[in-house]
């Protein structure tokens, strides 16, 4: 019994982190004995690590690096259902753009944008532009946000004009980019028009 106690004491000194037990933290942080597998966003043994790649279908809209070439969100109504899409900023891809037009005849309307992305890689931000390209608003912390595990989430709510055209820019927020080694990310963006409360 005493020997067992001693074994338990000694054995308890070293953390034993299961491969894949954790998702990568900011700056691809992982336990010392593991590394970040960029496709799965998981901390695994170094021999199983693979390089970052965008999920299938997320790059079909490229090139979308300018407002005019941005992906069009169609069929929005004054109070719309939520548009949701997965996207990816691959290495070397500075930004993605979406564009939409508000239906005419809406008495009052606002756009609600929500973006979630992996905390392991470079943080992202959302900027709302008007038809001229002028910046209208940037994201802020979400109220009652419940990001997924290993993800961060940002929100943008802005009153807009009925019949107007707008652009949504998704770009790197800067910082936490592994000293330049993880300047990429995967994200999910949700856009919805609603009546201001």
């Amino acid at each position, binding site marked *: 019994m005493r020997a067992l106690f001693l074994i338990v004491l000694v054995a308890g*000194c*070293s953390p034993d*982190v*299961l491969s894949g037990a954790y998702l990568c933290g900011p700056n691809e942080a992982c*336990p010392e004995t593991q590394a970040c597998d960029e496709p799965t966003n998981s901390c695994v043994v170094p021999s199983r690590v693979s390089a970052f790649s965008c999920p299938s279908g997320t790059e079909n809209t490229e090139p979308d690096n300018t407002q005019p070439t941005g992906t069009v969100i169609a069929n929005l109504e004054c109070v719309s259902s939520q548009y949701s899409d997965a996207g990816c900023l691959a290495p070397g891809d500075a930004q993605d753009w979406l564009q939409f037009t508000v239906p005419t005849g809406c008495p009052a309307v606002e756009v609600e944008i929500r973006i979630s992305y992996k905390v*392991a890689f470079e943080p992202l931000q959302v900027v709302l532009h008007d038809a001229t390209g002028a910046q209208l608003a940037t994201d802020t912390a979400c109220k009652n946000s419940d990001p997924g*595990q*290993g993800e961060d989430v940002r929100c943008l709510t802005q009153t807009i004009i009925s019949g107007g055209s707008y652009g949504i820019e998704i770009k790197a927020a800067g910082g936490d980019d592994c000293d330049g080694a993880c300047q990429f990310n995967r994200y999910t963006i949700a856009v919805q028009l609603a009546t201001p409360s």
Partner: protein
Amino acid sequence: MRLAWILLGSLVATPAFAAEPALPPPAPPPTPTEPTPPPALPLVTMPGMTPEYPPQSMRKDIVVTTDRDRDSKNIAILASIAGAGAILAGVGVYYNLDSQDAANAVSPRMPTGAAWTADRQADYDRAHESGVKAGIFYGLGGAALITATVMFIVTAPGSETTVIHPHYAPTVAPTPGGAMLGGTWSF
């Protein structure tokens, strides 16, 4: 008291006394290395008694072995070292348990779905650091305890052996109608 010794001697030493005339004279030392016999004791003289025989050496020495006590300084030093060792080992146990606690906090049995955060990294580092500290304090405590044990053995005061060479002298004292036999012993 002396009278009691005399009476006791008369009872116990009577056979020796009776056999005394048959005793062979003391043999010369067989080798030069044999210790020289103790000097002859003076004749026993007691009031009213007449010494008849000179003191005789008894055949068997009395060996008395006495264990010495540790002095208080030695006990204090040993207790201090052992106590320090116990305290150091106790500190080692504290760090060991702290290390174990931190290690358990970051050692899940299955995927957690949670990100590796700074807090978890802090627990991970604490597990390592406390483990190292535990090892150091275990080592120091163990060394102190071993030192105390070795010193306990090395500084054992040992025992003192005293060899007593008893002698006796028979006495004969005339009494009305007879005589009283007795003996005195010296060491």
